[in-house]
């Protein structure tokens, strides 16, 4: 379906781009939020990414999926915007190995709380790990596609993903514990 609208845009029908915006706006925002950790900046990055996408759509050769190509634009735009706005890259130093992995009591949490919790946890983990998780699980991308979007090497992506899984479990447990302690 994307291909059809891309062809229309390339043929001069700029209104067809609205379909792509509608389809990918939430994912664009989610990816941007993973990297910027700031709602306003993420919105700006999403906006800029769509404009960048529109301007360079003629360069899309269809070798990879449109989504993969577009997510790469978002990642690059996010890094560029953060550099421009001098956003500091601080990696959180959570004691990964100090906390035992526990089974998350998923059943005990109602849907909305789970959503808030997972997003809160994603805000607390480092940018690259948050990005890796969102791309890998949300879009069910393969490792190769993940590497294509982020320019990481295969082994690097594996390590980041592994750390991300571990860290998010720890953060989720921590958040749940706090929640229950407060309750």
């Amino acid at each position: 379906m994307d291909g059809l609208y891309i062809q229309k845009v390339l043929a001069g029908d700029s209104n067809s781009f609205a379909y792509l915006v509608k389809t990918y706006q939430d994912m664009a925002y989610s990816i941007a939020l993973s990297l910027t950790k700031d709602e306003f900046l993420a919105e700006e990055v999403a906006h800029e990414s769509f404009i960048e996408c529109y301007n360079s759509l003629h360069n899309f050769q269809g070798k990879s999926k449109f989504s993969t190509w577009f997510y790469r634009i978002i990642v690059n735009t996010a890094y560029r915007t953060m550099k421009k706005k001098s956003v500091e890259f601080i990696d959180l130093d959570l004691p990964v190995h100090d906390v035992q992995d526990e089974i998350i009591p998923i059943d005990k949490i109602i849907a909305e709380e789970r959503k808030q919790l997972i997003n809160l946890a994603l805000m607390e983990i480092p940018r690259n790990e948050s990005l890796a998780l969102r791309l890998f699980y949300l879009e069910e991308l393969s490792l190769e596609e993940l590497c294509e979007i982020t320019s990481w090497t295969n082994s690097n992506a594996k390590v980041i993903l592994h750390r991300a899984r571990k860290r998010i479990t720890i953060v989720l447990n921590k958040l749940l514990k706090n929640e229950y302690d407060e309750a």
Partner: protein
Amino acid sequence: MNTMKHEEDPLNELMPLSKVKIPVDNFEDRVMSHIKLIEAKKAGVYKTKLYSIIFFLAALIFGFMLTHWLTHIMVASNISATFKQLLQLFSQIIYVALIVVFSNKIFALIKTRRYLNERVQASHNQEI
């Protein structure tokens, strides 16, 4: 790290919840109005591009006529033959050099689409 597959992973259940809805209702409209603005400016830039080509061709013809006319004047004048040749050569070199320089710019303008996009983007950023 033993498996990188999507199956058999507890995060499979949780992570789909991490898709965040964009908090702005009119995001799509904003992007589309920005694109409309880009298209409108592009049309303006294309017009400028067309004028550039027309003026380049006009200057090419005018330059040729001017060189031809100057040569005629020099032939009819009483100055020495060596000086005449020198002047002729000098005016022709200038003419050719100008053609080379400007045709290079014109070809770049015709070919490069990115140039137009960048100009449109730059002017939009300036406005913001």
